[in-house]
């Protein structure tokens, strides 16, 4: 991932709303084709960053460059390759889905000859082809969110910027959005999205940026996040037949402590510096020597949520 070309450069971005410093010297890059998750508490400055990125916000310090070109310049060409889904996509009450997509698609440069097929294709992709001629105002919140997504991807942009795209969606729709992000990313679309649903961010983001009180606290992939925040290494072992497993595990080298969670389920804390693979190998041998039957052995890696909570506890996130 590190050798990927940079598509978006956020350079020392700062924004002040009267007495509130919404963004404070925020800098990071988004690489071509990657999925970048942006997290942080409410009011941290996520939406402000996004609005500056897509050109809705015009007064700020610093710069945003897309493909090397500043968004302070002529935005027409940059906007052709941009798809944006706001936190709450708003459409005029009189619009049908078809009218909305037709106008937005045409304004984004889709020709009159192509627009019909592209609307049909996009609505099918979003799983809502039956809504095409219905009034948006009469649709459910989740469906409107899908239409918001449809207008963002209709013209096949190179960069998708999404502000809380899965907020308010049911589990099935959330799953569909995640699959869509992955598919678009595989096709070369760069995706930047903010979210409070940390499990989704962890699952689909290649890299994650954590924002707190207008400052960027961390940027990196999950591995980098884990290594920076949590030093504790743990193994979870499940036995289908336990024959003195506790004693065997306690004796294994590299194991600091053993905790029996339920029958046949052990949580092992490894000594600082111990290697996951070596300890795993050793405990398997030790357990097999007792005659126990092993169902699974897996490292317990901290989730993004745990890392986030850890950051909160340490006061890194305010």
């Amino acid at each position: 991932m590190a050798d990927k070309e940079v598509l978006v450069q956020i350079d020392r971005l700062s924004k002040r709303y009267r007495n509130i410093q919404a963004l404070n010297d925020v800098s990071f890059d988004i690489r071509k084709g990657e999925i970048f998750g942006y997290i942080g508490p409410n009011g941290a400055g996520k939406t402000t960053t996004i609005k500056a990125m897509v050109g809705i916000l015009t007064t700020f310090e610093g710069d945003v460059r897309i493909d090397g070109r500043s968004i302070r310049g002529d935005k027409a060409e940059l906007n052709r390759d941009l798809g944006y889904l706001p936190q709450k996509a708003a459409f005029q009450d009189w619009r049908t889905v078809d009218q909305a997509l037709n106008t937005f698609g045409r304004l984004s440069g889709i020709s009159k000859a192509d627009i019909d097929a592209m609307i049909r294709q996009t609505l099918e992709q979003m799983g809502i082809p039956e809504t095409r001629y219905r009034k948006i105002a009469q649709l459910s919140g989740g469906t409107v969110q899908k239409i918001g997504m449809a207008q963002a991807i209709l013209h096949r942009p190179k960069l998708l910027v999404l502000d809380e795209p899965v907020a308010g969606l049911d589990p099935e729709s959330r799953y569909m959005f995640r699959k869509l992000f992955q598919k678009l990313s595989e096709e070369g679309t760069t995706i930047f999205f903010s979210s409070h649903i940390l499990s989704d961010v962890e699952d689909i983001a290649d890299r994650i940026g954590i924002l707190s009180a207008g400052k960027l606290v961390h940027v990196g992939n999950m591995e980098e996040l884990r290594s920076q925040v949590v030093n504790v290494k743990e193994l979870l072992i499940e036995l289908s037949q336990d024959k003195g497993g506790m004693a065997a595990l306690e004796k294994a080298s590299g194991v600091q402590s053993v905790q029996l969670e339920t029958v046949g389920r052990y949580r092992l804390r490894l000594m600082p510096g111990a290697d996951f693979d070596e300890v795993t190998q050793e405990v398997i041998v030790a357990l097999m020597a007792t005659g126990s039957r092993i169902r699974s052995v897996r490292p317990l890696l901290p989730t993004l949520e745990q890392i986030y909570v850890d950051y909160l506890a340490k006061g890194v996130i305010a």
Partner: protein
Amino acid sequence: MSLPILFKDELTGFYKSKVMLFLWVGLPVISLLLYALSPDTGGVPASVFIALIVASVGGALASIMLVVTIINEKERKVYDLFVIRPIKRWQIVVSKFLAVFICLTIAGMISIIAGVLADILINGAISSALLQGLGDSIVITLCMMAIACSASVLIGVVSPSILIGVIAVLYGANQLAALVVLPIFLANSPLYLAGLITVGICIVLLALAVYLFDRKQL
């Protein structure tokens, strides 16, 4: 290329939201009813009377509608999905003005034609003097409507709330629209002066609206 798309979109919006129906059917009907119900019109022909009604009532209604639409769309962040497209922000403002002004002009013409028909029914024919007076009325009506619409666009862009916007339109835009009539009545100036004043005022108001819309953090 974007301006025609935006303009067509605005017209579709007026058509779909029944605004067009009200302006094109409701306004002529109201104008004719007011003429018929007025106890004394002082000998003013129906067509001229209706032109005045269109300029005042139609202008006020269209201005209020315009200001409410802009403030409502601004509050709901509807413009977010427009300004991120490869278009210029001024095109959004100008397309709104053009759509309302043209809709209102058509409504005015329908109303005045209805008035002319009423005059023919009442008098059997129209005199050339009446036609001359009618022509002047139409020009003044168009000028007043253009100023009212452009002022409403500006008020819509800067107003923080619908209430303030509507008050500003009623006490500002419509009074400003009356400016165009003043030189004609006070100094007996030629009609083309009213046209020039109108074009000047509209350009200034729309330029200001475009500048503020561009600067404003939506």
